[in-house]
């Protein structure tokens, strides 16, 4: 029989990082992600790795910057207001092409908002977030098990592309406990990426420079072109999504993370009533699964996007659909979690 253990999403993310060989963690406490910081405080110490409770979110992201340029697998975590503080650091990480894993367990905003679950940081996460032309890879788990596996994957993608990766969850995912089996049963293998760019002392070799300040004529434009080429490659290779009943669906729901779980129940209820409904769940929010949505939309009567926001991913769905079918929206804000009944009513009303 499969051995299962009960973990909350925050702890699963922590264990994903530990097993991926995270060597450095810095963070500053904030609800609803505190179990993650607490987990790292204990486990990093057990593993003889570095845990720092920094004096602020800004210092945490800059410590990650330092650890990463020295070659360490590094991570920080926070929740919405704290992630806003980290944006300068994230822009610098991308500019310097440094890998890092950043966890955002979203809460209600704007401002200090509240500590209830939310998905209102979608724009910030997927459209860059800081200054400059850039993207971070964004992965959105919808279960505790996936919180583990996607965090593990995030470290590989960060090293592979030398780019920060964001895990975008919400308060429900972070706080919820579920049985997980993967953690104990199939320990994935940690990949080793040769890092011939790190600053680890230049005795016997030429010095290396890592910087994002490029003042020479045309230098920064060339750098940006290179970055864009990398983003294009990521868009081609790293799209991830889950699809249900697309073969015969004439209407689909599109949602991610916690909300997609609730949407799945609506889909299965409507299916049992004979409705031809399907679902697309983006797992990578950037790169966004444009192609599958575009392809599917051509034979649909409509799409309902459901989010815990005023409608952010909605825009990416509309861009993908290119007007091929109507796109509707249902959202809750400021900590509201949509119920099965609410979404069901929305679908029936269309």
């Amino acid at each position, binding site marked *: 029989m499969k051995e*299962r253990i*009960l973990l909350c999403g925050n702890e699963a993310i922590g264990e994903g990082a530990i097993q991926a060989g995270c060597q450095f963690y810095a963070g500053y406490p904030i*609800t*609803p992600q505190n179990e993650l910081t607490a987990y790292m405080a204990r486990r990093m110490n057990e593993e003889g790795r570095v845990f720092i409770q920094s004096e602020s979110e800004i210092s945490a992201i800059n410590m990650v910057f330092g650890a990463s340029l020295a070659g360490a697998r590094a991570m920080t975590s926070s929740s919405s207001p704290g992630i806003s503080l980290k944006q300068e650091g994230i822009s610098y990480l991308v500019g310097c092409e440094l890998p890092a894993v950043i966890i955002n367990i979203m809460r209600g905003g704007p401002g200090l908002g509240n*500590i209830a679950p939310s998905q209102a940081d979608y724009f910030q996460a997927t459209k860059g977030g800081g200054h400059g032309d850039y993207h971070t890879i964004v992965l959105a788990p919808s279960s505790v098990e996936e919180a583990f596996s996607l965090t593990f994957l995030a470290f590989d993608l960060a090293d592979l592309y030398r780019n920060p990766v964001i895990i975008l969850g919400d*308060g*429900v995912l972070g*706080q*919820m*406990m*579920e*049985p997980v089996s993967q953690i104990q049963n199939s320990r994935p293998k940690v990949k080793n990426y040769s890092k011939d760019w790190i600053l680890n002392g230049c005795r016997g070799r030429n010095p290396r420079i890592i910087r994002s300040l490029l003042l020479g004529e045309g230098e920064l434009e060339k750098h940006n072109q290179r970055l864009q080429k990398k983003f294009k490659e990521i868009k081609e290779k790293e799209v991830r999504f889950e699809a249900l009943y697309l073969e015969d669906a004439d209407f689909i729901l599109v949602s991610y993370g*916690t909300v997609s*779980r*609730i949407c*799945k*129940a609506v889909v299965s209820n409507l299916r049992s009533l004979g409705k031809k409904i399907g679902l697309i769940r983006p797992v990578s929010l950037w790169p966004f699964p444009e192609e599958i949505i575009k392809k599917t939309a051509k034979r649909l009567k409509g799409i309902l996007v459901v989010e815990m926001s005023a409608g952010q991913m909605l825009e990416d769905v509309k861009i993908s659909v290119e007007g091929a079918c109507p796109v509707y929206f249902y959202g809750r804000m400021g900590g509201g*979690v949509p*119920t*099965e009944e609410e979404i069901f009513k929305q679908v029936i009303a269309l």
Partner: protein
Amino acid sequence: MKEEVICAGFGGQGIMVLGKILALAAMKEDKFVTWMPSYGAEVRGGTAHSMVVISDREITSPVITNPTTAIVMNQPSLDKFLPKTKAQGLVIVNTSLAKVNPTRKDLEILKVPATEMAAKLGNIKVANMIILGAYLAKRKTLSLESVLNALPETISAEFLELNEIALRTGFNL
């Protein structure tokens, strides 16, 4: 089968542990289960609740708006969750700390003087186990054995025996 349980009471009454033990026991019975705390600005002495969903099918949302069972350990929790409990649902009340003034006829209400019974066992902290035992006997969602097996994972060895006794006391009411 889908059971949605809200456990509520004062911080310090073992509300979170009560929910976690239920969740662990459900996991041992190979059921789908989620556990979720209310994680507002809770303080010791304030009210807190945890939500446990136990099902034969994959669980969509761990957030419970209207429970099928409410286990309430104090008056504020009773006042909050009695009106929200689903029709034909079950409300188990710790009558040592809450007075039931039944305004709804569509609920089953089970009264357990859990804090007083726990005091008789020598420690009011096991009131949560007494009420959990009463729940298991009433609802039969999970077996007493699975819950007994789950205890050592959350209760330290020192207090294990007392908790087991309290659980059985509630079960045999």
